[in-house]
């Protein structure tokens, strides 16, 4: 169990590391070029890994609906925007506001499609996140 906790924590650290590296690359190139390299090099890495593990294309893969292919293009915009923002508002603001936006939009998506949701916790969470955002803007 300790191993899996370490895995999950490491995953969070790697998200930050990735944004920091892409942000640095964007300073020397452009956010969109940094996003291109992020995807192209990740693709090469995953292709090699898939060939070694031999489980890249499972039988169900071909039944993936066409619209699920759009995760990549959305990711390009996401990585480009993060690479642009991190040099302007810093790593903490970028990480926290992206997480806040992910949480609030996730709650909205679940509400819209009628997924199970504990309302008090979700609503209080959204209020705290918005309060945190307002606090980053409060004049001293």
């Amino acid at each position: 169990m300790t191993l899996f906790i370490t895995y999950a924590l490491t995953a969070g650290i790697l998200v930050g590391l990735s944004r920091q590296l892409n942000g640095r690359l964007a300073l020397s190139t452009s956010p969109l070029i940094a996003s291109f390299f992020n995807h192209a090099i990740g693709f090469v890495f995953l292709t090699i890994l898939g060939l070694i593990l031999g489980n890249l294309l499972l039988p169900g893969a071909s039944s993936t609906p066409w619209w699920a292919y759009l995760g990549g293009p959305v990711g390009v915009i996401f990585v480009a925007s993060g690479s642009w923002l991190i040099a302007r508002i810093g790593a903490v603001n970028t990480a926290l506001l992206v997480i806040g936006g992910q949480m609030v939009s996730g709650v909205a998506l679940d509400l819209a499609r009628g997924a199970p949701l504990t309302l008090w916790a979700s609503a209080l969470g959204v209020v705290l996140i918005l309060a945190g955002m307002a606090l980053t803007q409060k004049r001293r």
Partner: protein
Amino acid sequence: MSSPDAPQPNPLHLLAAFGSGGLLTMMVFLNGEAGSHGGALFSSWLAHGTGTVAAIIFLAVLWRRRPATGETRAKAALWAYLGGVSGAATVMLTSTTVNTPLALAGTLALGLAGQVVFSLAADQWGFFGLPKRRLGLRDAGAVALIVVGSLLIILFGVGASA
């Protein structure tokens, strides 16, 4: 008044970051659909592949519109190109942990902790050549509010109703 705090961030930049969290929700949803058909490795591989093609198209469109500038910038070190490896490794770790007792909620909560610790250190010391930002009490308060709010949603809000 002189203050060690970081300069006031532009509100539009903060809103853009918040909005990009919505893109992340959409991305997780779309990649999750691909993963439910072909598994986590296929899903991440597919997203990186279609993303590469999309980035080339976006760059080609912008290239034609943008007048050439004679500006040259300092070249980036080779390590700056490894963000994609770090991102791909993230997917391997999280697709493992969601299938352990940690489940999705534990994976998200611990990932949040990892991101907060890394980003605090990154701003403090200016990791990998990005600007340093000294954080003040106000920033600490904002971090605390957003973390507690997110943990409430992850652990007790979404999908946690028994």
